[in-house]
């Protein structure tokens, strides 16, 4: 038996490592480096109802052990993604998770319904927390009722399992998690980026054209671990963990905190091979710390 395998709603993962949404496009570029079938799954770049250009540039900044991004959900729109990208990814043996976003509940429903029509998408990741969308997306992410509402509506709009992606920019992450669980979420995905800013000294203004951006990378790992640890104890749906993963020890730390699988974002930019390297390193790391399988390690760091 494969000791890295994990079964989650809609997702039979041969290993628990997948690229995080927005950090891997739709896989094409990284397929030049390695065979995407090696991945546990792929989380596609956010899809919206129609094409979006996103924010002005600069869109990224470097911070201590992290980065800020304010891409602004640039994407070719759900129809084009299904036609061009999903059909391309369907050539690989890996579950596809479609990250969906929008400025209105109707837009979320539309995107969810569209992905529901394809055979190749295995789950939806509901991005209620993108800090860069000014039109409305952000409120869903910090208000339990609104988050529950969009979750419920998206569940109705499609038959696909729904993983709700939580924002860390909240006072009470457990309240957000339990609200979307009650609303029918099949899983959680956490965390999205922390809202941050950098001021560019020479120009004396925010470096990002969008002013604020989402902080990701190793800097935020302690926040991600804390939130997963807190949420895991209060929900019974599985968690896909992310936030600053760069080593197989980090992967194990997320599993111990309660994640059932993990996504890797920013680290792809440093090392395009990070995902396959983590997959290769994980068996040894599990063994080193006394685990036979990924399944064994999930939540084992929780001491209550």
């Amino acid at each position, binding site marked *: 038996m494969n000791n890295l395998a994990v079964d989650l709603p809609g997702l039979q993962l041969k290993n628990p490592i997948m690229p995080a949404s*927005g*950090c*891997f*496009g739709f896989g*094409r*570029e*990284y397929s*030049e*480096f390695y065979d995407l079938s090696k991945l546990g799954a792929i989380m596609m*770049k956010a899809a919206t109802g129609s*094409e*979006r*250009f*996103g924010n002005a*540039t*600069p*869109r*990224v*900044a*470097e*911070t201590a*052990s*992290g*980065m800020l*991004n304010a*891409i602004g959900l*640039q994407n070719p729109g759900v129809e084009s993604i299904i036609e061009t990208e999903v059909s391309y990814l369907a050539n690989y043996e890996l579950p596809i998770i479609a990250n969906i976003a929008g400025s209105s509940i109707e837009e979320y429903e539309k995107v969810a319904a569209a992905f529901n029509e394809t055979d190749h998408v295995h789950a939806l990741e509901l991005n209620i927390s993108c800090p860069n969308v000014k039109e409305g997306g952000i409120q869903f992410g910090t208000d339990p009722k609104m988050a529950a509402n969009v979750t419920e509506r998206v569940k109705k709009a499609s038959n696909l399992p729904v993983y709700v992606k939580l924002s860390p920019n909240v006072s009470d992450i457990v309240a957000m998690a339990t609200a979307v669980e009650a609303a029918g979420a099949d899983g959680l995905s956490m965390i999205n980026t922390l809202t941050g800013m950098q001021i560019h000294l020479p120009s004396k203004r925010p470096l990002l054209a969008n002013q604020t951006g989402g902080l990701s*990378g*190793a800097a935020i790992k302690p926040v991600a671990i804390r939130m997963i640890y807190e949420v895991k104890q209060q929900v019974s749906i599985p968690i896909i963990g992310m936030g600053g993963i760069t080593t197989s020890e980090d992967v194990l730390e997320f599993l111990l905190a309660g994640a059932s699988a993990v996504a890797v974002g*920013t680290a*792809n*930019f*440093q*090392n*395009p*091979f990070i995902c396959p390297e983590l997959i290769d390193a994980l068996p040894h790391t599990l063994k080193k710390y006394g685990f036979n399988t990924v399944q064994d390690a999930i939540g084992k760091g929780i001491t209550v």
Partner: protein
Amino acid sequence: MKKETMRIKSTKRIALDTVEMVLENNYMSQTAVPGQFLHLLVSGHTLRRPISIADVNKTEHTITILFKMLGSGTHDLASYQVGMTIDALGPSGNGFQLHNDNQSTILLIGGGIGVPPLYYLGKTLAQLDMHIISVLGFQTSKSVFYEEKFRALGETYIVTDDGSYGDQGFVTDVLHSVESFDRYYSCGPVPMLQAVTASLKDKPGYISLEERMGCGVGACFACVIPTDDAGGYKKICKDGPVFDAQEVSL
């Protein structure tokens, strides 16, 4: 494009805060074309630094880069010693269109740290028997580099912002003194490129652009530049950094 380990063969300050580094790697040196860049991992930094390929020596298996020490990443890179290695992605992006019209006259217009990619371009075009004229702008006399190397390719004008070397002014100030030419290639800060493309709008030309990058491979949408007002765009890291001067909206 591959991820390769490059060995530092030499590193030296060649102008104010400007470092020339020669990096050894077989794959990179054999496949690079003018206008492409390397995406360099500087230890301790989350994001890689894009640096143009300034010269290639295929027999020595080396690539030369020239970079200005601006922020922390380039300062750290400047402290790397001979014998150390650098993790690089590359050769990245699409290079300059060379065309095959030998005997044509080519104008190279470079500003500051936009000058480096024009050197390998100029050298390559000169080998294709084109006539090279270079107009290079720097901030001040101490920032000037590669003047002799460009002169070896052809007529070369140097301007400095403060007039401390060459003529005082901007590269656009000397464009009128240049004899007629067939095509231009330019790289430098955006205001310079705006001025250059505006004053040469009737000439065919190529420009190389800079933008802050995330992935450097086309996956993250950090480095887009609009191509029209209708949402069209290109990715500088993958579709560029070189564009037809009329193709993008600066």
